C-alpha cells in the first residue's frame, strides 16, 4: 500500500533525468517564463527536449516550487525558479545550488525522502528510489524510476544528499562539533580526600578559679571545629 498523504503536493519527474530537467527549467527562462505563462511546446523547442517530456513534468516542477500554473496549459517561473534558472544560465553554479536547496528542501516529498535517508543512512539509490515511489504512490517502474533517479541527482546536486564513494547516499553532512578529548576534570582527580593531619597547638592558660567543665567544653569545641570538613 502506498504512503501517499498529500497527493496534490507530491509528484515525481517522469521519463527524464536531471540533465533534461535542468534544460527544461532554463528553457522556461529562455521562453520568457519569468514574465508570464508559456506553453510546454515553446519550452521544449528551446530546451531541445521532447514536448511530451515537458508537459508530463510540469506537475513535478510545480510541486517543488520552480514553476506555477498561470492558466490552462500555461506555466510561468516562480520567483525562486527564475533566480535558479538565471543563476544556471549565467554559470553561477554555487548560487544555483543554494537557491535550489532552499526552494526544495521543505517540500513534502523531499522532506520525507531526506528523513528516510537520515534515519536509515547509508541508503542505496535503488532503496531510495523505491521509497520515493512509495511516498509518491507510483509504481517503481522505468517510467517513474528514471525520473526519481533524476530527482535524487537533483537532491545531490543541491547538496541535500551526499553520494559516498560506494554510491550509497547519506543526508547533508554537517560538520560535527569536534569531540573534546576526555580529560578528567580536577574534581574527578580529587575525589580521594586524604585525612588532614595538620598539627595544631592550642595554649590554654588556666587560672586558679577556672571551671573544669568550661575547659572541657572549650576542648570539645576545638575538636569539633577541627573535625569539620
Amino acid at each position, binding site marked *: 500500500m502506498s504512503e501517499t498523504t498529500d497527493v496534490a503536493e507530491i509528484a515525481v519527474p517522469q521519463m527524464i533525468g*536531471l540533465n533534461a530537467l*535542468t534544460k527544461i527549467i*532554463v528553457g522556461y527562462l529562455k521562453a520568457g517564463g519569468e514574465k508570464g505563462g508559456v506553453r510546454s511546446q515553446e519550452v521544449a523547442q528551446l*530546451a531541445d527536449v521532447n514536448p511530451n517530456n515537458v508537459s508530463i513534468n510540469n506537475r513535478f516542477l510545480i510541486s517543488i516550487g520552480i514553476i506555477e500554473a498561470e492558466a490552462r496549459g500555461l506555466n510561468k517561473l516562480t520567483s525562486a525558479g527564475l533566480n535558479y534558472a538565471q543563476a544556471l*544560465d549565467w554559470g553561477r*553554479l*554555487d548560487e544555483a545550488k543554494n537557491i535550489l536547496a532552499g526552494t526544495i528542501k521543505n517540500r513534502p516529498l523531499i522532506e520525507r525522502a531526506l528523513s528516510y535517508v537520515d534515519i536509515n543512512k547509508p541508503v542505496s539509490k535503488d532503496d531510495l528510489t523505491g521509497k520515493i515511489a512509495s511516498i509518491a504512490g507510483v509504481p517503481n517502474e522505468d517510467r517513474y524510476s528514471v525520473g526519481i533517479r533524476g530527482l535524487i541527482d537533483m537532491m545531490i546536486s543541491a547538496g541535500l544528499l551526499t553520494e559516498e564513494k560506494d554510491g550509497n547516499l547519506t543526508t547533508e553532512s554537517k560538520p560535527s562539533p569536534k569531540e573534546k578529548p576526555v580529560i578528567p576534570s580536577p574534581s574527578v582527580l580529587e575525589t580521594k580526600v586524604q585525612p588532614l593531619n595538620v598539627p595544631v597547638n592550642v595554649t590554654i592558660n588556666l587560672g586558679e578559679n577556672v571551671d573544669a567543665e568550661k575547659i572541657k567544653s572549650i576542648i570539645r569545641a576545638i575538636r569539633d571545629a577541627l573535625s569539620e570538613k
Partner: protein
Amino acid sequence: MLPTPQNLIERIRTERGLQFEQAVSDAFNSLGLSSSLTTSTEAESDVIVEALLPESTYFVVVECCAVDDQNEVGYEKLGQLRGSFMYYVADERRQKLGFNNAYKAVVGRPQFSDNAVERAFPDVSLISVDILAELLKLHSKYRFSQEELESIFRVSGQVKSEHLAGVASSYQRRISIYALICLALLSDPYSQDDQRKPFSQIEQVVGSVGTLSNLLQIEYADEAAIRECLRDLQTPFLKLVCVKENMIRLSSLPLSRVPSIAGEIGSELLSRLQEYKQRLERMRNL
C-alpha cells in the same frame, strides 16, 4: 612533446576552422587547464575547458572563430554560445562533479565587432587571439594557477591587456622585492662585480629594502612582504640567500646562473636588479 608558447601563438594566429579550434584547445592546455574539443554529438560549442584542481572548480564553454583579417567576429557567436551553454551545465557528469562556476568565452581573430562587444555583457568574455598570445607569454614566465586564470574568464566583455596585467602584477611586485633584496645584500650596489656583504641582521636587510624601495620610488614594500620574499629566495629550488639564525647573506650562487635555475622569472629578476643599479648610479651622479 608539449608545444612551445611560440609554436602555439603561431598556430592561433594562422590556423582556420577545426585546426584553429584545436590550436585554441592546445593553448588552454598549455595554460595548465584541461581542455578538449567537444564531441559533435554533445552540442555546438567548440572547446570545453575545465579547471578541476582549485578549491572552487569551474569550466568554460568556448566558441572559436577566426575570420579574414579585414573582417570582425560578429555577435552571432554569442547567440550560439548562449544557446549551447546549458547543454554543458546540464550534463550529468559535470553536475556530479559539482563545479562551482561555469563561464562562456569566445576566442576570436582578428577582432570583435562593436556589436559583439556591446552584447557580450553580462556573461560572455571575448578573448582575442592577441590577448591569448599575451596570456601564453605571461604564463610561460609566471605559471599562473587555475585560480588566477579564472579572473580572465570572469571578465564580461572584451578581455584587455589591463586584465592580464592585473593577474601578473603580484608576481611583478615580488620580483621587484627580490631584486631589492639582492641589491641590499651586495656590498657595493653601484659596482658590477656582485661582491656580497657578509652576514647581516635580517631586520637590517628588511630596513634597507624598505629604504631602497623608497629611494627608487618602487611601490612600498611592507615588512611582511619583504620577509615572505626572503623565504622564497632561500627555497631549496633556488638557494639565492643563506640564513643563519637571524643573519642573512647572498649565497655563493653566481647571479648570472639564476635564469638557468629560475627560468624567465630569474631573467626578469636579473634585469630588474640591473635596472635598479643603473638608477642608483644615475642618482649618485646627480
